[in-house]
């Protein structure tokens, strides 16, 4: 394969990843690393570097749309970013000393979890837990628009949520993904933040988290312009098309299909990692 062929094929693959990622709300980042490593034989370190770049582009590119909707809570986002950025820096350092086989296996496990959480409908979170004093101290409580007007919410279990966010940051830094699934788990299921607020605030945090590890990856020489270029442009193009056709798309079926694809890629990553052929 020469450079031109490689660039075009990677751009097409990334376009599809970005399109499916934006239509299903799962983000294109999760499939970029398996795509590059399994289909193109790219070393996993280069793949992670390129994936991080694409994650930043979709997060920053869609910020305007999310902020206009009025769901995201910038205080929750900023406070939790302290945990995710420290985690991302930890993860980026860990990546240097972790064998690539182990990274492939961990990647597969995280992918399986993402596929599982995507195929399951959002569970209504109960709100009968004790209010959290840190939430009051940090002014995390807020409200969001619903059909029946503004609805206020309280944030709970702040220390547990903060800790899980650190883990989400480590995963993001180690694997070069947005780890949106873990972020939403922390906010929605543990901190009891409404689902819509969790997902949009998570999108806001993903770019900042990815930037924290991207700096370290760049200095380490993991970000190659020849790979990052088609990946970034492809994912961004796919996300733009996705945003256009989203209103008429059959998202449920698509989510199921995409989850199955992710699960298959996960098994393949784990298998290759165990065999040591990645």
């Amino acid at each position: 394969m020469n450079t031109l062929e490689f660039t075009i094929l990677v751009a097409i693959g990334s376009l599809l990843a970005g399109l499916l990622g934006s239509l299903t709300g799962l983000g294109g980042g999760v499939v970029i690393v398996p795509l590059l490593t399994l289909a193109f034989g790219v070393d996993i370190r280069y793949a992670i570097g390129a994936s991080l770049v694409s994650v930043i582009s979709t997060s920053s590119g869609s910020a305007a749309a999310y902020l206009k909707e009025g769901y995201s809570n910038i205080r929750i986002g900023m406070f939790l970013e302290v945990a995710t950025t420290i985690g991302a820096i930890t993860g980026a350092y860990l990546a240097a000393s972790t064998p690539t086989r182990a990274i492939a296996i961990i990647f597969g496990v995280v992918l399986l979890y993402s596929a599982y959480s995507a195929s399951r409908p959002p569970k209504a979170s109960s709100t009968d837990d004790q209010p959290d004093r840190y939430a009051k101290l940090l002014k995390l409580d807020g409200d969001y628009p619903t059909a029946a007007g503004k609805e206020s919410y309280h944030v709970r279990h702040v220390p547990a949520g903060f800790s899980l966010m650190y883990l989400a940051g480590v995963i993001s830094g180690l694997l070069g993904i947005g780890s949106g699934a873990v972020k939403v788990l922390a906010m929605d299921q543990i901190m009891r933040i409404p689902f819509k607020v969790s997902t949009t605030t998570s999108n806001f945090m993903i770019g900042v988290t990815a930037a924290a590890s991207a700096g370290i990856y760049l200095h380490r020489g993991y970000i190659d312009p020849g790979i990052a270029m088609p990946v970034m442009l492809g994912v961004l193009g796919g996300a733009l098309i996705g945003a256009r056709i989203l209103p008429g798309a059959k998202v449920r079926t698509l989510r199921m299909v995409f989850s199955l694809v992710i699960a298959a890629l996960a098994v393949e990553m784990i298998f290759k990692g165990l065999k040591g052929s990645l």
Partner: protein
Amino acid sequence: MPAIPDWGDKRFEIMIGRLLRYGVFLAASWVLVGGIHYLLQSHSEAMNYKVFRGESDDLRFVREIIRGALELNARGFIQLGILLLIATPVARVAFSVVGFALEKDWLYVGVTLIVLALLVYSLSS
């Protein structure tokens, strides 16, 4: 009542969101121009990413990347676009410091400065 973002705060946020989108658009255009230049130069070279070698110094550090891009080196030019993209979330956090300061929310000026310091550490370490 806990302080919740008021309308002025939200308007500031939307403005930041727009700036980010312009930033991404600029970075993507930059990378596209560099990419075309790169492909015209080296389209028929064999690609080899199977073995990890790591990038050379001129593609790893901010100052060297800028120098390479000014010399119109195709890969350096793309890398500067990518650096620009990495800078967009950093800019967002920096703007948020200003936003919280305008609201006189000093607690969150502090929180945001911590996040900014971590990002600057990562990019300069």
